[in-house]
């Protein structure tokens, strides 16, 4: 009994941490995923107590559904746009607030972080007001420079309306990644910069050869995180700002899932879209990880 006690105790100790978490993970993550996959094989309205097994027909139908392709295109447009926009701006602000020390840097740090504290719903409503063609800020601002009153319907173009969702999405995302990168930059020993400036390296050379390689790990995480949250979370901003319209031109997979499952009563099809989102996110994650594989440089 006494034999191997320390080993046994160690095992027990680890298990007390892992088992409950694992159980909850199974209950709240694995189980719903399997459920969604199960329902995706049925023709089910979502409100009936009988459903018909149709195998992969929901997925076959998806291939011929132009809205799905459009939605997926919009999703990837937002992924690419947000990665580029957020990463450039967040890196710029992070560097500016750490490397170029100036008086108000703490103040700006808080200012840039504020959008992160605001709910996406509020952000959507806020930007709806900015874009409002009649009483919105944007048209009022542009009207200052023109003779005639500007009346552009920012969220009502016949196509490409999805472009207008990019600024709020980027604006809302910068703060968090900025903080992440600030933390990374602050972890770089000051001596590196001192040494390099003694060697005559300017700000750009320092950024390119010291900062960037040493924060690459955090940037990688940020890019993956932006990708995943965009594929799974664009739903909210789309629902608030455009409801997928006009004429489905701003539909993303998440909003189309909701539309199909809950307002058009094709729950099985909605579940199938959910499975599609899962598969697409996984594939994209793998591809992105491959693409960004680069030797990690560590501070030694």
């Amino acid at each position: 009994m006494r034999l191997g006690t320390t080993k046994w105790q160690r095992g027990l100790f680890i298990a007390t941490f892992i088992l409950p978490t694992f159980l909850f993970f199974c209950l709240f993550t694995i189980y719903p995923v399997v459920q969604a996959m199960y329902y995706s094989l049925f023709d089910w309205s979502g409100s009936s107590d009988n459903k018909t097994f149709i195998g992969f027909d929901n997925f076959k139908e998806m291939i011929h559904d132009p809205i799905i392709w459009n939605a997926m295109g919009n999703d990837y447009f937002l992924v690419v746009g947000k990665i580029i926009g957020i990463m450039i701006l967040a890196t710029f602000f992070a560097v500016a607030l750490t490397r170029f020390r100036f008086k108000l840097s703490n103040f700006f740090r808080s200012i840039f972080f504020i959008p992160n504290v605001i709910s996406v719903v509020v952000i959507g409503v806020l930007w709806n007001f900015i874009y409002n063609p009649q009483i919105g800020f944007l048209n009022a601002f542009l009207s200052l420079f023109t003779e005639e009153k500007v009346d552009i319907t920012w969220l009502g173009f016949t196509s490409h309306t999805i472009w207008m969702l990019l600024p709020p999405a980027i604006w809302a995302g910068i703060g968090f990644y900025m903080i992440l990168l600030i933390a990374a930059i602050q972890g770089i020993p000051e001596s590196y910069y001192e040494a390099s400036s003694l060697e005559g390296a300017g700000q750009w050379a320092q950024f390119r050869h010291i900062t960037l390689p040493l924060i690459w790990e955090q940037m990688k995480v940020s890019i993956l995180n932006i990708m995943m949250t965009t594929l799974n979370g664009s739903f909210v901003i789309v629902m608030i700002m455009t409801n997928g319209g006009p004429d489905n031109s701003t539909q993303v997979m998440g909003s189309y899932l909701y539309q199909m499952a809950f307002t058009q009563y094709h729950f099985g099809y909605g579940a199938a879209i959910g499975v599609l989102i899962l598969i697409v996110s996984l594939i994209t994650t793998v591809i992105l990880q491959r693409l960004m594989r680069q030797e990690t440089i560590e501070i030694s």
Partner: protein
Amino acid sequence: MVSKTRLAALGIAALMAVAPLAGCGSSKEEAKQPEPAKTEEPAATNTDEGNKTGSDDGAKKLTGEFEIQYFVGGYGDKWWKKVIADFQAANPDLKIKESGGPKINDQMKPRWVGGNPPDFVYIDGPNLNDRQMVEDGQLEDLTDWLKDAKNIDGEKISDILAQPPQLFDGKVYDIPLVLNSWGVFWDKALFKEKGWEEPTDWQSFMAVSDKIKAAGVTPFIHTGKYPYYINGAILYPAIVSANNNDISILQDMAASKVEAFQSPAVMAALNKIVELRDKGFIDKASIQINHTDSQMLFLQHKDAFIPNGLWLPNEMAKDIPGGFAFGFIPSLTQDNGGKVVANTSTANVAIAKNAKNKDAAKAFLQFIFSKAQASQWAELSGAPSNIKGDISDSNAPSHVKDAAKYLTDPNTVVVPAITFNADVDKAMQDATDALTISKITPEQWVERVVEAAKKANK
């Protein structure tokens, strides 16, 4: 469901589950997947004797539990509280359970799916569609019962209904409780001040819109985010007018009959919207704004006309500027001298097929479809009830009385409320939006919707 298919489905699901997990990714995306509906338990069908006609006017003592589901929205819940209290007082041995609230439709969904629904349901608000409930086999067939059901005052219910129930394949599953109407609003005071004539038909509508536009006001605004407003108040009445006031075309459209959408009447109606668009009468802001924003712009006199339902004055009560006087007409798309078309909108009541206390549910129907409850409805909810009767001396607001006048006028074509197939409805809404911003032609509108109707028929 045969257990074999279920096994097969589970098997495939398990396979699909294992494959991505082996790749080990974050898979929290399914978190937003809908409620873990407990299904598959065999529908607890209650073998109630059920087949009671209305001949006995609730003389039998009602006992047991009786559950009522009601959505609380624009019409409030004052009436429900009152009528349930009255019904309880009349049936002291009945244990009434109220399941009401603005989110009740979503909250109760798992129970409908699980075969354990409430006994009585008021079908209103989002995510509850009577056509879908009928297709899902969730509602009790009331056809035979309604044939000779009498209310508590001994009046035959089908005789006193202002609008008959919608028929699904010739059968009645739910009964309209509210009689509301789509239509077009304007501000009488503004029109008087500017010397604009209040329109009565398409020609006068176009003529006055020209004047309004010349005066620097945009004639027409709608909510592009929810295009069913412009469909309900402009397009559908226009279709009926163009179809020689024959409303059967809308009923055929509701049944997703392809020929109905290809009718020249639909094309004529679509061309009316094109005319509005091409004359520059539609506010460009419309396409991207929601109903509240469009209503605000209307109340601020940025736009002269707005398609809406009779609930508008109630909904915007807090924001109506002083001196604002609502003018209302159910339709403006009829030609000079033509009949006004009132496309009504309603909220229905029904009994669940799997109800446990159908006797009580039927007695409750007999209770609420009475003159006394009808006038109480108009008073407490601010909308006309679906029971015939003069409300001119009730406490209902004046625009409701105006509308009631239209709805009872023999020169008005009254369209009983209809529910379209959800897919076809969405296709029509998207297409109308696209039409108003010149993205598609009327021909393409028809093409798209026909496609959706064909698919719905499969």
